[in-house]
């Protein structure tokens, strides 16, 4: 029974197995045993697979995985800040004054260095003419760097920067010659430049060298503006650096946005005019024996600076070669950044105030005794002489201090200082450069103001202004009573658009009639004086200035500041020139050393800006008027 039962069980099991397992052999019992074996193997692999999955899940989500996650999180992303290329600076006609050129940084990737001697030899050979690397020690410095063992934190070492295209080409040529080099001796390394790498970068360059360097300023090695426009417009020129997060996961890599370079600037400066003015100034400083000099040329109609220079100029490409200028106490841009007592050129403002306030007329006369007392101090004329009866034109022509003091006293301090403030004396001009000083003009309410200041201020002593501030004030005389704001930036371009700057006129301190009257008076005074400032073919208006230089103990007995401000053509002023020669030794007088400079500058600028002589211009003007009247279209 047992046997039968067992047999019956086997049969039933076999039948059941045959129903469950579709692929059974003909021999049911052996097939069943085989099926169990298969099942065990399958269970084994299923168990192994299940275990693997469990381990994956444990690593992925368990405590072990946390360690890996923390480790990878510090490596999966890289932060990098991109600095866009610096914008360019152009003159008004599109000549590049400040741009960028391609240079290279050469470095060693220590992981790949095979032969440090080769690297040192090639670098020393290629850089032998490069300032800073033209030293015998340079070879050993490179050799020491290339012989270091790489570490996790230091495997990239810069061995040369600002390498030029030619120098890099030489390095590449030498490197190519070593590509298939073999060992010279069994115990030596084969020559190789493996590990030497480079990457391009931009370096500021000034193609015109020292031209307009006083205006442009310069940047440091890292491209940060230090002086002039480079400093004042650093944010615009430098562009907006942006930080980007990079992932090491290629699936997370994203296209990098276009790096927009910094904005470009277009100046009101004209290259040819600037060069001519700089040339004239250099000669004037040399001929007069002045310690320094300044010339500014401006369009009095709109305030555009056509040229502006001072005798301290450097090549911005090599600014580091001029530490005596960089570290000097004197400003790099004298006409903009240095105040001084202008002297007699200031008299045009006093006369304008007197005429505009109705205190005097051009025909008003007074008896010049050569001396006047105000606030307890005596004022003399420049030659200590008495000039007798003079009208207002004579006052300007002979630059009489006593006359100016008389006018100021007649106006009274309130009227006089109100006009001076209207001329923005003692304030900044608002010019678009960095670091403009305010100047100095005492007010009646100031504790250090005395009545004598009214007298000295009337002829330009005891006030401090920059040449640019003087030009801004005097522009009202040349522009029908309306002042202009001097500026050097015509427009800037950024984001694919060009923005032309519009400057609001600072004000109208005098009436248009007054401006035309004093312009005519100044033209007459120059003509009657047969001044050195007269320009052949052009009628000009202007005023000389000779100012003593203040020191800690009073005014210097012999040194002066010689100045001249003039504009023309008198009937339609288009060019205004300011000349300032500091401490001239050939002659202390502005009429001798500064006036001829004005004449030369005006003549040259007129040619370069296509301003025809008065006769030609009036002829054209009349012809155009006749055509307009006749209605004939040419």
């Amino acid at each position: 029974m047992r046997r039968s039962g067992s047999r019956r069980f086997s049969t039933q099991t076999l039948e059941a197995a045959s129903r469950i397992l579709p692929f059974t052999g003909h021999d049911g019992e052996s097939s069943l045993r085989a099926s169990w074996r298969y099942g065990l193997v399958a269970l084994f692999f299923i168990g192994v697979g299940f275990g693997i999955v469990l381990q994956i899940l444990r690593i992925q989500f368990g405590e072990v995985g946390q360690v890996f996650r923390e480790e990878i999180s510090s490596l999966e992303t890289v932060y990098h800040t991109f600095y866009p290329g610096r914008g360019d600076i152009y003159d008004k006609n599109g000549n590049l004054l400040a741009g960028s050129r391609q240079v290279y940084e050469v470095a060693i990737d220590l992981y790949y260095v095979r032969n440090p001697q080769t690297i040192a030899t090639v670098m020393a050979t290629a850089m032998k003419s490069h300032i800073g690397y033209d030293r015998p020690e340079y070879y050993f410095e490179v050799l020491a760097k290339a012989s270091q063992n790489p570490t996790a934190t230091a495997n990239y070492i810069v061995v040369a920067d600002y390498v030029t295209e030619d120098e890099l080409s030489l390095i590449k040529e030498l490197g190519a010659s070593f590509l298939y080099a073999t060992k010279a001796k069994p115990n030596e390394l084969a020559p190789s430049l493996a590990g030497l790498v480079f990457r391009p970068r931009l370096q500021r360059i000034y193609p015109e060298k020292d031209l307009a360097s006083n205006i442009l300023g310069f940047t440091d090695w890292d491209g940060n503006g230090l002086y002039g426009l480079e400093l004042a417009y650093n944010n615009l020129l430098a562009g907006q650096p942006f930080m980007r997060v990079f992932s090491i996961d290629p699936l997370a890599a994203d296209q990098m946005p276009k790096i927009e370079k910094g904005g470009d600037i277009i100046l009101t400066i004209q290259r040819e005019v600037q060069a001519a003015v700089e040339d004239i100034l250099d000669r004037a400083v040399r001929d007069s024996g002045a310690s320094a000099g300044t010339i500014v040329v401006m369009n009095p109609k709109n305030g555009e600076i056509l040229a502006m220079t001072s005798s301290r100029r450097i090549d911005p490409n090599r600014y580091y070669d001029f530490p005596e200028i960089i570290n000097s106490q004197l400003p790099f841009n004298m006409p903009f950044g240095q105040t001084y007592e202008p002297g007699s050129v200031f008299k045009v403002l006093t006369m304008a105030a007197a005429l505009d306030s109705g205190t005097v007329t051009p025909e008003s006369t007074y008896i010049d005794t050569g001396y006047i007392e105000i606030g307890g101090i005596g004022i003399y004329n420049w030659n200590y002489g008495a000039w007798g009866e003079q009208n207002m034109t004579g006052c300007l022509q002979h630059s009489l201090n006593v006359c100016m003091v008389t006018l100021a006293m007649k106006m009274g301090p309130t009227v006089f200082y109100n006009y001076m403030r209207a001329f923005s004396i003692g304030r900044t001009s608002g010019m678009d450069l960095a670091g403009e000083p305010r100047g100095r003009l005492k007010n009646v309410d100031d504790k250090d103001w005395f009545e004598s200041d009214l007298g000295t201020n009337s002829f330009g002593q005891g006030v401090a202004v920059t040449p640019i501030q003087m030009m801004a004030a005097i522009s009202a005389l040349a522009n029908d009573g309306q002042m202009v704001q001097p500026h050097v930036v015509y427009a800037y371009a950024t984001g694919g658009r060009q923005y032309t700057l519009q400057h609001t006129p600072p004000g109208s301190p005098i009436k248009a009639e007054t401006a035309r009257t004093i312009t005519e008076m100044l033209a007459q005074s120059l003509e009657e004086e047969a001044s050195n400032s007269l320009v052949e073919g052009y009628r000009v208006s202007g005023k000389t200035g000779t100012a003593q230089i203040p020191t800690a103990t009073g005014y210097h007995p012999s040194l002066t500041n010689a100045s001249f401000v003039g504009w023309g053509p008198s009937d339609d002023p288009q060019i205004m020139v300011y000349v300032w020669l500091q401490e001239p030794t050939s002659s202390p007088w502005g009429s001798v050393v500064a006036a001829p400079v004005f004449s030369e500058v005006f003549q040259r600028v007129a040619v370069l800006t296509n301003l025809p002589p008065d006769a030609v211009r009036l002829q054209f003007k009349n012809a155009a008027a006749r055509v307009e009247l006749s209605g004939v279209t040419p």
Partner: protein
Amino acid sequence: MNRPTNNAVNVAARKSGMAGLEHTNQIGERSSRSQNSTTQRNGGNSSRSHTRGMARSSAATSPVRVRLADDRAPWRVQMQVAGSILLGLVVMAVVALFYLNVSAKTAALGRQIQFYTVRLDGPHRVTVDDPEGTIIPIEEIDIQIAGLRARLAELNSLERIERRAQEMGFKPLDANSIVYLRVPGYQPRKAIRLAPEPAPQVATITNVLPAYRSTLIDAVSQGWSSMVNKVMAAVISAGTPAEQVQP
């Protein structure tokens, strides 16, 4: 013994008739099991002969039942199971293939982006020719353009131009040697323009023809002018001697 044979099943099915498909299916299923048992008992006859036997026995009863029995043959069920599994595997493989393909391409592009990113800010090797050297990132091209612009400016610098002009015999212009000419319509040189102004460009565009925009007064005045001109021309031509008329 208590299991019905195929014939018995067929007979039973015939007795039950074709009343319903569900019932027929149950019969078919049972016949499939009995066929399996018969196959085992016969010591492994081929399924083909077995099917023929079924076909013969079914042919005597009903062709529908023969087909049902044939459809439920074990090898067909096994093939269906295996086929379904394989089909699922194939579908999964195709999906995986697409996924892998897309992922691989994305990863390749990502690597390329990373390469250029590194190339932009990273170093170039001196000794090894760059396999991607012919493809230069825009940023490097910008650097090259800036460098070329600066180089051009150096070549066109005023100092260099003046020196070259003097070598060619030119000299600075003297104010007295200038002859000024009045040129009607002359436009003085304007400042350089690096980019367009931001002000929007306003353009007036109309598709209406002038004839449709003229008023009645315009039409009358135009017609009047035309008529006057014709009359005047006729009068002038009538008063002009024939010999004075130029051909």
